[in-house]
């Protein structure tokens, strides 16, 4: 299970969201079904700090991979450096229709100053770029060889942007209209099977294609949230966005994200301030930790994650 968040919102800092989200993650940690968390990088520095704190807390409670999604046109050496300092495991560059040259140059400059980066860098090329997918992917692979994994994005990035725009401009009419389609059928969604997707507004959506309208907010108890996620398959076939999820075997998170094993960071002093360091640091698999210790770690995680909401 991977938790995915979209957009650049600061919903981590909202007490009504941070609490249930922490409890939900803790439930997944207890059941050892959490593989990690993917989130977008906020622009605002304080929001970034809160996000990194949450991710580190999750990571050190044994929550697996932490991943930052970064649109190609917003890749800069500074944004990559922020992720490195924030001790995120991976950055995924969402390469859309924009020319990759600037993003490639930014990554090269970052690599120049970080010859032994702790940060894994991946590129997701938008599968919806008609006619130029190969050239865009080739530009990245020629610049970095095997040093950066270039993959087709598991979802069509342009569609995600369109869905957001449509939902914003129509005030929710789109979802309502689509839900009035054919009767539901029993289809499974490959994305949903592996990922809980949380929109920065605090609503849970079946997959990144979805606008948040009409779906349950996260401001509920973890058990309710799990139940809400479980109801999605019943409505997937009635939603035009979801028609086809079942047949897209690639429409799932990549294997490297599924691994719960996190490689220990090596070398040098931690770039974090002393107060940011955790005594509950776990390196490796949560499965290797004794049950009592695991419970302690998870409780520490909840406390820390909830404190994010009230942090300055």
């Amino acid at each position: 299970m991977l938790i995915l968040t979209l957009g650049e919102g600061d919903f981590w800092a909202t007490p009504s969201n941070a609490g249930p989200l922490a409890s939900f993650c803790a439930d997944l940690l207890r059941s050892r079904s959490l593989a990690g968390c993917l989130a977008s990088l906020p622009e605002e520095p304080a929001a970034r700090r809160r996000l990194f704190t949450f991710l580190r807390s999750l990571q050190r409670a044994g929550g697996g991979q932490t991943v930052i999604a970064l649109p190609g046109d917003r890749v800069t050496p500074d944004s990559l450096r922020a992720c490195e300092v924030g001790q995120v495991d991976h950055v995924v560059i969402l390469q859309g229709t924009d020319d990759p040259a600037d993003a490639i140059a930014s990554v090269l400059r970052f690599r120049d100053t970080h010859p032994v980066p702790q940060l894994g860098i991946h590129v997701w090329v938008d599968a919806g770029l008609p006619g130029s997918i190969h050239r865009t992917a080739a530009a990245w692979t020629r610049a970095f060889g095997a040093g950066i994994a270039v993959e087709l994005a598991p979802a069509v990035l342009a569609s995600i942007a369109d869905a957001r725009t449509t939902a914003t401009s129509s005030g929710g009419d789109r979802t309502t209209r689509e839900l009035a389609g054919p009767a539901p059928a029993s289809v499974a969604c490959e994305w949903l099977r592996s990922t809980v997707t949380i929109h920065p507004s605090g609503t849970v959506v079946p997959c990144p294609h979805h606008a948040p309208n009409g779906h349950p907010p996260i401001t509920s108890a973890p058990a309710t949230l799990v139940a809400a996620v479980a109801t999605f398959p019943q409505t997937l076939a009635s939603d035009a966005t979801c028609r086809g999820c079942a047949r897209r075997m690639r429409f799932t998170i990549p294997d490297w994200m599924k691994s719960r094993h996190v490689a220990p960071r090596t070398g040098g002093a931690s770039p974090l301030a002393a107060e940011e360091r955790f005594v509950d640091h776990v390196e490796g698999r949560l499965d290797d930790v004794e049950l009592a210790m695991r419970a302690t770690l998870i409780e520490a995680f909840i406390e820390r994650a909830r404190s994010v909401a009230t942090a300055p």
Partner: protein
Amino acid sequence: MRTSQRTFRLDPSKYPVVVPHVSWSEGTLFFGGIALRELSPAEWAFLQRCDGTRALRELVTTASDARTIATVAPWLVWWDAPVVRTLVVPGGATRLVFSPGPEDAWLGMGGRLFMESPTHATTVITCFGLMARTVEPLAFATPNDLAAIARDEIALVAQVAGVAHELWELPARELRHSEDGRAGAPSSVDWMKSMLREVIDEAVARAAPNEIFVPFAGDASSDAGVLLDVVLGMYVDGLFDAAELHIFESTPVANGHRPIDEFLGRFERSYVELRDYFVPVTPWIGRKGSALEVFRSRVDHASRDAWLESAKLNGVLSDPVAGSGTTTRELHAERFWAARLAGAA
């Protein structure tokens, strides 16, 4: 290395399009992952102007242009008319074409797709995954490379033909049979058929087509065989309402009649009767040939030639007098079978 030349036509009246397989990086032209030759930025800029909207006579204005076009000609596809790229969004379609792989529908009925797309809103659906097979393994070495270029090929051909396309990416035959039983590779054909039936049912309900096309299949375990089996089952069960079911060739008749005879043998004493017919596509055969050249990661030169030869033989079969060469005009045709439930009026 299999980057052999395809065509080398410097016809001033033709419209060249650079194939999406070539890219340029720091002074070198690449075909997939293979470095072809040195190419200056100016030459690459010229090559990028070859988008099918201008004829060669408009493109070439200097001796340098002529040299460039001559050296990169093998990686151009030539069209007989200005290319109008139309991004058709899948939706309501009067014609649904189910293709096992990206190229199959264009091999079997590419001429008809070009000819009738202006009058028949068409969606070509590629049902199975793109990662398992290529004729250019050195140029496209990884599944990601293959998936990317196959999508580019489909997008270009569909845009030029003015049809919509969808990719379902169900596991192709090569991916279904997992020797090591790795997770995520379903080994059951039954599972595949049930999934396919569900998504076809959904696609038909969404588009409400008048016509449905599937490939004939000599091998029942092939992707085409699985697809045909599912669609025929749904047809017999009456799930297509008023839609007509047509079957297109998926093996060129030039390669021999035996596969077709064996295929037709399956329908003896069946609930489904087949009536074969031919569609003349002579004016469109050039465009079909060009479309097949776009699928360079999937279709080799020999296959393309076999299909074009098959169109000639179909022309003879469709009109023995005109097609036999006794007239000055050579006929090209594509072969289809229309399905009908036994005993139906």
